[in-house]
C-alpha cells in the first residue's frame, strides 16, 4: 500500500501505526507497534505498567517523537510533511495545528488551576482556533451541561472533586471539536465512587460516534464500550480482538495473567 492508495480508498483508518518504535535513551519502550483505528471505533489499550501504553498514546499526539516506523492520523503523517519520498520534519507551529484535531485526557486531569472551569474550556478554542467568543462560550456551556457540571462553570478546578475535574478535562478536550480522543487512564487517579461518573460520560461520548483510544484498567468499561481491545506487553501488541473475546477468552498466557490480576 502506498500513500496514494491510502488517499484513494474511501474508508481511510483514522489512525494507522506502522512499526512504530520509540526509545528513551538505551531503553526501547515501543518495539514496533502496528495498529489501525477506524473512524468511530473505540479501542481500549490494556497492559501492565510500563508496557508502553502511555508512550504510544503520546506518540499519536506527537507529545513524543517516534524513532522508527510511521504514524498516520487521517491522511497526515504525524510529525512530518511528505514531499515525494522525503519526510520533512514539521515546524512547531504545524505540530500544534495538527494537535487541534486530537483531544487528550490525562490521568491527572492537568486542568489549568488558575482558570475557572469555563476559562479552561474556552482557552484553546479562543487562542488556538481563534474562534468567536460567544460561539465558544455557548459550546463550552453546552459541553458542561453534557458532563453534568453546568453549575460549576465559574468554580476553580481545586474546588471540584477528582471525578468532576476529570469530566471538566474531557469537556475541555471536546471543546476543540476533535476528530479523535485519547484517554490515558482517565479514572485511575479517582476514588472508586467517582469512577462511575467519568465512565458514564465516556460511554455517552462513545455512543455519539467519537473515535476513541482509551488506556484503562476498567475491564467493565472495556467490555461494555470498546469495539476492540488491544493488549500490550513490553512494547509490543501481543493480542487484539473484540472486547468480549480478549477479556473472556484471552489467548496469550500474558494476557491471561494480567486479566486475572486486574479483574
Amino acid at each position, binding site marked *: 500500500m502506498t500513500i496514494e492508495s491510502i488517499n484513494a480508498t474511501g474508508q481511510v483508518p483514522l489512525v494507522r501505526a506502522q512499526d512504530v518504535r520509540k526509545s528513551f535513551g538505551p531503553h526501547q519502550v515501543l518495539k514496533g507497534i502496528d495498529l489501525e483505528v477506524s473512524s468511530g471505533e473505540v479501542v481500549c489499550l490494556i497492559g501492565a505498567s510500563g508496557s508502553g501504553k502511555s508512550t504510544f498514546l503520546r506518540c499519536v*499526539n506527537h*507529545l513524543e517523537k517516534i524513532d522508527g516506523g510511521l504514524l498516520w492520523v487521517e491522511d497526515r503523517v504525524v510529525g512530518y510533511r511528505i514531499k515525494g519520498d522525503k519526510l520533512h520534519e514539521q515546524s*512547531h*507551529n504545524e505540530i*500544534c*495545528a*495538527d*494537535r*487541534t484535531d*486530537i*483531544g*487528550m485526557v*490525562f490521568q*491527572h486531569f*492537568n*486542568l*489549568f*488551576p*488558575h*482558570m*475557572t472551569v469555563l476559562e479552561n474550556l474556552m*482557552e*484553546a478554542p479562543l*487562542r*488556538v*482556533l481563534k474562534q468567536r467568543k460567544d460561539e465558544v462560550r455557548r459550546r463550552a456551556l453546552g459541553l458542561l451541561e453534557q458532563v453534568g457540571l453546568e453549575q460549576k462553570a465559574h468554580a*476553580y*478546578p*481545586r*474546588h471540584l472533586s477528582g471525578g468532576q475535574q476529570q469530566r471538566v478535562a474531557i469537556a*475541555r*478536550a471536546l471543546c*476543540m471539536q476533535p476528530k479523535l480522543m485519547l484517554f490515558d487512564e482517565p479514572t485511575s487517579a479517582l476514588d472508586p465512587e467517582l469512577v462511575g461518573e467519568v465512565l458514564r460520560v465516556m460511554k455517552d461520548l462513545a455512543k455519539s460516534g467519537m473515535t476513541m483510544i482509551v488506556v484503562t484498567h476498567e475491564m467493565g468499561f472495556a467490555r461494555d464500550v470498546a469495539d476492540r481491545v488491544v493488549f500490550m506487553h513490553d512494547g509490543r501488541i501481543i493480542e487484539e480482538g473484540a472486547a468480549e473475546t480478549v477479556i473472556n477468552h484471552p489467548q496469550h498466557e500474558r494476557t491471561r495473567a494480567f486479566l486475572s490480576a486486574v479483574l
Partner: protein
Amino acid sequence: MSGLMNPTATATGHGRFTVVPARHPWRWVAGTAVAAVVILLVISALTNPRFGWDKVSLYFRDVAIVNGIGITLFLTVVCMALGVGLGVVLAVMQLSANPVVKASASAYVTIFRGTPVLVQLLFWFNLSALYPEITFGIPGVSLDANQLITPLAAAILGLGLNEAAYMSEIVRAGIQSIEQGQSEAAGALGMSRIQTLTRVVLPQAMRVIIPPTGNEFIGMLKTTSLVSVLAVPELLYSAQIIYSKNLQVVPLLLVASIWYIIITTVFSIGQGYLERRFSRGTSRTVPPTPVERLRKFFRVHSPLATGKGNAS
C-alpha cells in the same frame, strides 16, 4: 459509660472533666524579653537627643527630599519593569534549544550579575570616555554617546540591565517549578510554546516568582542610591547632600530611612495582595491573606492540623 457522659455537656464539652489549657511559660518569657528589649530600644531612641527628632520632622518634607523620593520611585519602577521584562526573555532564552541563544543569555547573566552595578553605572554614564563617537562601524554614522545616553538613561540602563540578570534566575526557577503536566496539557490542546508560556506556565509561576521579586524590588529601592555616582539626587543622596552641608548626619539618615520604610511597607502590602491574586485556584477555599497563610503553618496546639491536600 453514661456516668462519664455529663447529660448537660454541650457539643464541645468533655464529659465531667474541666479542661486546663496548656501553659507555655518559656514562650511567654521569650516573648516578654523580646518585647522589653524592643520597647527599651524605642524609648532610648526617642529620648536620645542625639537622634535629633526635631530636625527629623524639620527635614521630613523638605523639597529636596520629596524630589529625591520621586526620583527613587521613578527609577525603581522603570528599572524593575525593564528588569522583569528582559528577565523573562533571558529566562526563556536560557531554557531555549538554540545553543547560540542559550549561550548568549548565560553570558549576559554571568557578566551582568558578576560585575558590581556601580561599575555598570559608571560604564554607561562615562561611555563617551571609552567611545567618544559611536559609529557602529558604519561610515557616516557618528553619534555622541553623551547625547544618546542622558544621565537618567544611564541610570536606567545600568540598574535595569543588571536587574534583568537577577530576575532571569528568579523567573527561570519559577518556570521550572510548574509541573510538566501543565505544558503537556497545553501542548495537547494545540497551544504554541509562546501561548503555553504566557497563558499557562507564567501565570502559575507567578506564585513562586513574586516573593523573591518583592525582595528584588525592595532591594532596587535602595540600590537606586548608587546613581549618586551619576550626580542624580535620589532619596538617600539628597539626604546626604543636605547633611554634608549642615552636618545633621543622624537626623537626615533617619528621614531617609523612615521614608524608605514607608515605601517598603506600602509596597509589601501591595505584594501581599498580588500574591493573593495569583494564588487564585491553588487552594481549596478562598485564598487566605498573607497573614492568614503564615499563621496556618505552625499553629499553637495542632501544628500539623491544616487540612491541605493529603487529608482528603
